[in-house]
């Protein structure tokens, strides 16, 4: 029913976009605040001081140059795995495959670099090649989940999660078998990369170049999703599959392509873990960055630019974990509890979009 008078009819309200953006910022922030309150109750029950806890998170995550660098160091892979969840989510796919693509990407980076080092290749040629291989392997691995979804109707959430466990098992199998460095006695690992094949830190910091790669990819993927026909098609398919079909859009190809992009991001994260952090591939590659990335993307509302600050927030939580553990005498799992609470409040907050009265953009809804 429309009760708009003819004189009002053409006066467009300019604030519709602002209301949408405000909603997209305020609701996740509200969810974070609620999560912090719930977690404070948890701390009080344990007899710990919440104020001290959040103070320590600040000290350990952001207060000094050292802690800030520590935060950014951990944020780098989270940006990439956050992107790996966010891009397919825009087309309506819930993929839990980033961890697997990260592990396989890192592993292939480690094992393909060795023969290049032995053949005496320059790292300037070899490293980009290795990065490309890692991204391709990750892309194919997660793309497989998209392919299964489109051609065989297999639920992509389940298949990508199971593919993650397969990927970890494959890496462990090969690292402990044919690719094991005989010198790695404590922990089965591949051959370590030589020093000139290790990617160093950004000059003047202790943060590796993976952060820059993450920032560039976040910006590129934002342009891809918001400013190209590919992204527009993906948003149509993600918002209403039947409408996308009726527009003749190639929904299958779009889905597989966004899965492959996701896998490539995670594979690149694996590449940086190997060439910048570990220097070799071993079981520590499976450090759950892929799963934390899901949380990052959720809090960023699938916006690839927003993934960056959110990844830094989670990086800070991770960076301050050790400090909290030592100063407050709390177990390592404390941070996981906080992450879990954030995830639950975020899921609940999803139901508030479009329902808060002050964000309503129109009164001309039809109520009959």
């Amino acid at each position, binding site marked *: 029913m429309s009760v708009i008078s003819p004189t009002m009819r053409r006066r467009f309200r300019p604030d519709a976009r602002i209301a*949408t953006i405000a909603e997209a910022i305020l609701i996740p922030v509200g969810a974070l605040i609620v999560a912090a309150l719930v977690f404070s109750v948890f701390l009080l029950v344990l007899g710990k001081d919440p104020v001290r806890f959040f103070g320590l998170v600040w000290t350990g995550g952001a207060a000094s140059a050292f802690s800030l660098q520590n935060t950014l160091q951990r944020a780098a892979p989270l940006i990439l795995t956050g992107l790996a969840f966010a891009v397919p989510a825009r087309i309506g796919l819930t993929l839990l495959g980033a961890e697997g693509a990260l592990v396989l990407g890192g592993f292939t980076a480690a094992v393909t670099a060795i023969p290049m080092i032995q053949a005496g290749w320059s790292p300037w040629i070899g490293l980009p090649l290795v990065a490309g291989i890692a991204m391709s392997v990750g892309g194919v691995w997660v793309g497989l989940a998209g392919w299964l979804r489109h051609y065989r109707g297999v639920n992509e959430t389940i298949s990508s999660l199971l593919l993650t466990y397969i990927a970890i098992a494959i890496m462990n199998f090969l690292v402990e078998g044919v690719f094991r460095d005989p010198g790695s006695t404590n922990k089965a690992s591949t051959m370590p990369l030589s020093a000139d094949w290790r990617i160093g830190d950004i000059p003047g910091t202790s943060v590796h170049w993976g952060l820059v790669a993450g920032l560039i990819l976040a910006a590129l993927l934002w342009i891809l999703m918001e400013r190209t026909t590919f992204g527009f098609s993906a948003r*149509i398919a993600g918002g209403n599959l039947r409408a996308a079909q009726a527009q003749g859009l190639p929904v299958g190809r779009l889905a597989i392509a966004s899965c492959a992009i996701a896998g490539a991001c995670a594979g690149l994260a694996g590449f940086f873990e190997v060439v910048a952090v570990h220097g070799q591939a071993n079981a520590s590659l499976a450090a759950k960055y892929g799963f934390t990335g899901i949380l990052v993307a959720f809090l960023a509302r699938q916006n690839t630019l927003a993934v960056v600050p959110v990844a830094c927030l989670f990086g800070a939580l991770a960076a301050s974990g050790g400090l909290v553990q030592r100063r407050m005498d709390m177990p390592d799992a404390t941070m996981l509890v906080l992450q879990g609470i954030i995830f639950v409040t975020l899921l609940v907050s999803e139901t508030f979009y479009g329902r808060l009265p002050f964000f309503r953009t129109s009164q001309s809804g039809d109520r009959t």
Partner: protein
Amino acid sequence: MTATQAPSLRTFHMSKAFGQLQALDDISLDVAAGSFHALLGENGAGKSTLVKCIMGFYQADAGQVMFNGHEAKVRSPRDAHALGIGMVYQHFTLVPCLTAAENLVIARADTPMVINWKTERKRLDAFMETMPFQVRLDALVSTLSAGEKQKLEILKLLYLNQRFLILDEPTSVLTPSEADEVLGVLRDMAHRNDVTVLMISHKFREVKTFCDSFTVLRRGKCAGTGDARTASIAELSHMMIGDAGLRPPATRTAAPKSAPALHLNNLSARDVEGRHVVSNVTLTVPAGQIVGIAGVSGNGQSALIEVLSGQRALESGHITVGDAAFSPTRRNFDRFKVFGLPEEPLRNAVVPRMTVAENIAFRSFDKSPLANRLGILSPARIRKRGAELINKFNVHTSSPDAPIETLSGGNVQRAVLARELSGAVDVLIVANPCFGLDFASVADIRGKIMESRNKGAAVLLVSEDLDEIFELADQIAVMSEGQITYLAATADTDTMQVGQHIAGHGK
């Protein structure tokens, strides 16, 4: 179960506002015991709001309900059921995979943890003996026809001893003969003082034939009330739409035969369970003509539209436009100038959370000038073009940037029209374009469809509204159980003949 007396119901000065919208404004309704009362009005006039207030889904801001002469406080549908007020909704609320008997038993508020089917069955049989019509109790609901399902919905209310029946457009899913049967039974029961019926409708014929009295709502206000048997259709429609008068039907002009025709050759398609929902459909839609497909929903019309628009795989057969083979891809939609107005636009045509301007750009976002050759979009141009078409097609929206889900149904459909009909159209595929829309929108939309036809487009129209088909179509086909069972020029047929084929009684 003892039959109680039919109750009476009155509302006094009911008002209800949603934000700035006054949905109900001082409505007083008087339904006498044992009467069949019609509640008339355009979409958005407040009919549904009024019955939802009576049923306790909404709380009225002001006013009161008197039930059988006593003031009734209805705070929830549960309270309404306890009083004996029951409602039949526009769409079925039966569980399809259970039998009719099981549906009746689970509807009881006091269904026991363990159901003793022997005693339940005895009670049901005894109950059915007192009823004027029967439904096969052991049949699965999914195997019942629409008419039987509607009867079962009514039986369900009577089984729960609800004697004040509210029916929300109960005949929209029925064939004309099924509708007449159900309404006739209800009228007889009311006149025997078994029940009181309040029926929401916008079909004048049904109101004139079956109802005793009526109330008309217009824009939330009471626009008139009286005796349904003596009121003329002109009076009723004047009360419903006010001084605007009846809209003239869309004018038909001889069309140039320049565009190619749409041919469907032996099309077949299956549903997810592998059943044939479209079987061997062959139909030609000539340029400059509207071919209307009539039928009760669920007989394959939607599936046929889905096949043509790429939402359902074609199993066999082929589609041609002119002489060229056609498959529903984006390139072909553009090459053959094929456009569509699917049914339920929020489900089939738009992305609810994207903006109005973006939704209007769905056909053109990947072409110049909205995108360059590298595939980079221009949001400013999308917005500008959206604003132009919003003005041209008279879409009421607060902004081109408002999510399209905030628009009313008629305006969503206008936005889809703006997208699909702003350029040259050779083939137009339309399904139930006016379902649930108000008079003004209906006139607009039918006018635009006719305009496309007059410009030479081949138009395939699927509709459950026979009046719409007779108004628009040059040829009428009937689809039943996935097949075309009847085809005739509109001039050579009438509602009776088409109705018989719809009901499956064709020669």
